[in-house]
């Protein structure tokens, strides 16, 4: 019983921690693109990587102040969105999907390559760039704080707090945007692009704006992640994370302001609970070691995400809060 409560506490921490913020911001970005506008961005993690590395490279390689790093990360995300959007937004939805996933994988390979090592430090990654940020915390960051049965370090608590504030602000922004004329145009693009075009709207520009906005939100997520882990390593930004965010978005409900946030929290809670639970069961010998070893547990989470994503789309594409009629699930 005690172990169950422990597992719940650990899972709760994960559901509220900076990883959940990271996922939530990625998913909010995808919500703008996929949920409201109907764009398939499968390279969201690349935006996060640019955000994280924007800070990491600026601060620890170039010695620039922290805030400059934030600006660099955001600018890099905008540039990537423009580069990807220019050729593909006029084409069918799956072209954007292929181009974005290719860009994300390509960028990751580039960042971890030997030739990029002088800038990105290759597979070793960068660290030691969050001191300025942590110093902004209004409390003592070297202490440990017990909250809800788990211990949080002061720095972790600070990153998480800032992260949730960012999430709240993003949600407010999205809420205002989708109620505005801009939001109505974007939603109509999702429903029927040709109709919008015939009303004289420049569909291309609206799609591009959605892509950039979503990418910037993804970059913010990447920054929180890099600050939370205090390191930036290309292999933290695997493609699977993009699909983790998709799963979170669809779980919570696409085209709903709070859908991605609830989805991300739930997702991390479930993953961490399954993780800790499985490890405990293996440790207790309830699950025999040769059926599933403790090292396999890390992979199980992706198996579960894949399965969950499939089942959700087949049986409940609108997720928890969504409206079935509003979920863009048809190709154009």
């Amino acid at each position, binding site marked *: 019983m005690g172990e169950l409560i422990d597992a719940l506490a650990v899972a709760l921490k994960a559901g509220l921690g900076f990883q959940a913020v990271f996922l939530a911001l990625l998913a909010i970005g995808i919500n703008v693109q996929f949920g409201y506008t109907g764009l*398939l961005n*499968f390279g969201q993690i690349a935006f996060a990587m640019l955000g994280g590395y924007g800070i990491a490279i600026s601060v620890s390689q170039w010695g620039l102040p922290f805030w400059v790093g934030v600006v660099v990360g955001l600018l890099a995300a905008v540039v990537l969105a423009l580069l*990807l959007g*220019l*050729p*593909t*937004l*006029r*084409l*069918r*939805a*799956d*072209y954007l*999907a*292929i*181009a974005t*996933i*290719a*860009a994300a*994988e*390509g*960028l990751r*390979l*580039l960042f971890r*390559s*030997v*030739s*990029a090592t002088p800038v990105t430090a290759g*597979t070793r990654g960068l660290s030691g760039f969050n001191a300025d940020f942590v110093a902004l915390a209004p409390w003592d960051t070297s202490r440990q704080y017990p909250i809800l049965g788990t211990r949080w370090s002061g720095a972790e608590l600070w990153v998480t707090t800032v992260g949730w504030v960012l999430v709240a602000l993003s949600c407010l922004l999205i809420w205002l945007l989708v109620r505005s004329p801009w939001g109505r145009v974007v939603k109509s693009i999702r429903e029927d*692009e040709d109709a919008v075009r015939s009303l004289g709207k420049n569909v291309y520009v609206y799609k591009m704006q959605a892509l950039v906005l979503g990418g910037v939100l993804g970059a913010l997520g990447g920054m929180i992640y890099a600050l939370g882990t205090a390191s930036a390593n290309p*292999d933290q930004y695997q493609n*699977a994370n993009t*699909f983790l965010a*998709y*799963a979170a978005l*669809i779980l919570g409900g696409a085209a709903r302001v709070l859908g991605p946030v609830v989805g991300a929290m739930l997702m991390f809670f479930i993953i961490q609970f399954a993780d800790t639970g499985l490890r405990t069961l293996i440790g207790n010998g309830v699950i025999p070691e040769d059926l*599933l070893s403790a*090292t*396999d547990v*890390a*992979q*199980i989470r*992706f*198996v579960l*995400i*894949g*399965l*969950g*994503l*499939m089942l959700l*789309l*087949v049986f409940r*594409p609108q997720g928890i809060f969504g409206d079935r009629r509003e979920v*863009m*699930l*048809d*190709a*154009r």
Partner: protein
Amino acid sequence: MLLRLLLLTLLGGLALTLAPGTAAAQTEEPTATEQVSGTLRTNVSGPVEGVEVVVTTADGTEVDTVETDENGQWAVPVPGPGQYTVTINAEDLPEGVVLTGENSRTVTVDAGRNQGVIIALSDGSREAGGGTVRWIQLLVEGLRFGLLIAMAAVGLSLIFGTTGLTNFAHGELVTIGAIAAWFINVQGGVPLIPAALIAMVIGAGVGALNELAIWRPLRRRGTGLVAALVISIGLSLLLRYLYQIIFGGGSEAYADYRGQRAVDYGPFTMTNADLASIVIALVVLLLVAVMLQRTKIGKAMRAVADNRDLAASSGINVNRVILVVWMMGGALAALGGVLLGLSDEVQWDMGFRLLLLMFAGVTLGGLGTAYGALVGSVVVGVFVQMSTLVIPNDVKYVGGLLLLIVILIVRPQGILGSRVRVG
């Protein structure tokens, strides 16, 4: 990681020793004690056995001396984090294999890390061949790689053409072929050629299962194409990590045909296994082309891909054609996986890494056309290999992915695609 490094350096001309194998593959679970390790091999003559490796601390005290095993691997546990110098005895190298640079490397070992050490070797037989021209060598290797991509991509393109599905789980069909053949070959002791045939049957079976268990019911439910695409991503994640649990995160070679020496053909050199895989790929693709062109089912496939409703109304059993496409695609992808595993070793995510190049090939050739996928994939393979003439080896995939984006700007319908502007 080992594999990826290997793969990336494979064509570089220089053969390489490969090292951070364990380092990257196992970063999640650091070893309890620090060690340095590596693999001595060249991509032409394979692993180098029996070379003395001496590890010393920064102040020159010897830690240990070991010899590389039959896989060219060596590992030395070190007393703690710090700087170590790894030196190999160049006199132990077999004839024809020479050092590319220094015979020693100094590395820093972090706490709990298994630090890989790369000592670059090159196969002297290549220089000995005289007429070796680098661009011809790369062209030939690119052709081999492109034909592998093509074999896997034909199915991807035909599935797209007949059902409209952008199948992100197609790479997993490639991996299943490679892994199935590995289990049959290495664990089961069956020679590789029958093992590859069984793997193709398994691939066809998995393809059929895909269609019957997932995609046909979903089409019947009227699931949209975007939903189907996301479902295929879910399937891809599910299978990929399942493979990792079953197969492990490392890379493994088949029991047969390993460590072959390259044969000199004048302007280029190539192992017999690579030559065989080119021939096999050519023959198989030719058979596919003949089938598409001459047989009834082949014509039906092209008809369905061209216009599904028209095909159905002229009496073609569309569902049966789609099933055959899936089985054929699965078998071809599995064979491609075996051949890729033969040249680059088997790894749990090999298919997913190939997937993006398949997309590049298919997009270049024209989504949905069978011949387009062939032409496009070969072009992509050659482009990726030849690009190492100007860009470093470990970013050559980036070049391939950039090509994909450029194609989308210049000619989104591809070389052989029809000029329909969509969106």
